[in-house]
């Protein structure tokens, strides 16, 4: 049986890539240190497979066809299309894992979930900035779980928690002895293309972190359901953290670093969870 060996989350603001060489050196060093720490912990977990939970930034999907959630079941994915990404992460193809992707899809359908599927996704900066900065080995297969975090209406938080539990169930029911890690990307608060653009809602972020630390799903759900509509639109990506959190069993959250990052427009959050073994 497969095993969940590590759960992580990191921000992915595009300016991390676009402005990496020109941002203030001390700021770059803080970002680099946090990503490096995740990389260290990920390598220590010795994963055979990484599930990346991330939004799609209008790359694969548009409003004529916009899944709430989509599983990448292909053997291969395409690398990022953004010119600023090609500069730092010039990978044209990323390795997938069709067998686990298919198992996750089937487990979802058998459990009354209705995901979309894709046999070939193009992974944008949302997935690839963390992969680049964490230093994920090109040989490590990726199974993308793309979540609509950009265009309302979106999955509610209760459903994100359920998706996290489902992901865990799929990992633990996979018949091969795979070591699986999960990486949620995005957040924390930011505001993009709206009248508050640039706003980093530190109070929201710190409360959110407290709820992850506390581990009470009901409180986390109540807080996010009430506060997400009141903060910047980028905070909707917290859904990816929530899925990671629930996959870990909603416990064992450890903040690696958090700081407002005006240079990249985001509340820069980095975390890992110590997955607790499920009692059979």
């Amino acid at each position: 049986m497969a095993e969940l060996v590590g759960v992580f989350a990191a921000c992915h603001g595009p300016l991390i890539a676009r402005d990496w060489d020109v941002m203030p050196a001390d700021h770059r060093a803080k970002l680099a240190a946090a990503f490096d720490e995740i990389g260290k912990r990920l390598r220590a977990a010795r994963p055979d497979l990484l599930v990346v939970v991330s939004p799609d930034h209008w790359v694969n999907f548009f409003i004529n066809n916009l899944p709430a959630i989509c599983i990448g079941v292909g053997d291969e994915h395409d690398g990022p299309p953004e010119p600023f990404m090609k500069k730092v992460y010039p990978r044209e193809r990323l390795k997938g894992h069709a067998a686990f992707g298919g198992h996750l899809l089937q487990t979802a359908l058998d459990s009354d979930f209705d995901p979309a599927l894709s046999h070939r996704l193009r992974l944008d900066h949302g997935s690839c900035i963390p992969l680049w900065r964490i230093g994920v080995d090109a040989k490590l297969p990726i199974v993308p779980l793309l979540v609509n975090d950009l265009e309302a209406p979106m999955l509610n938080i209760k459903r994100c928690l359920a998706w996290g539990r489902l992901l865990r169930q799929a990992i633990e029911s996979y018949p091969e002895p795979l070591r699986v890690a999960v990486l949620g990307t995005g957040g924390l608060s930011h505001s993009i293309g709206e009248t508050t653009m640039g706003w980093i809602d530190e109070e929201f972020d710190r409360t959110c972190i407290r709820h992850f630390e506390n581990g009470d799903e009901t409180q986390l759900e109540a807080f996010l359901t009430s506060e997400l509509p009141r903060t910047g639109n980028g905070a909707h990506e917290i859904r990816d953290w929530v899925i990671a959190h629930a996959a870990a069993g909603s416990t064992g959250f450890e903040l690696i670093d958090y700081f407002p990052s005006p240079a990249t427009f985001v509340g820069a959050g980095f975390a890992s969870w110590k997955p607790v073994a499920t009692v059979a």
Partner: protein
Amino acid sequence: MTDYWLSKLFFDLQHDAGLAAAYRADRAAVIDRYEIRPEVRKALLEDDIGILAPRVNAYLLRFYFQIRGMPEAEFIAKLHALDASAKMKAKGVANG
């Protein structure tokens, strides 16, 4: 209210470098390939963010002005000018 054809124009510009170059050379000619309403067409030609923003996803709006060639500081200043209270929240933004 989402404007489908405005959104489609922005999406296509993001995905097609040739179209983006054509747009920078002659905005009106490219706009006329889409079913864009007259008031929206005027807003595109005048960079009237106040008209465009409520009609399109905020991320697509940002991509559009990047492709259009507007410096991000100018884009942010225009957004902030739409809402004085929002500007206060975003104070401290380097480019705002």
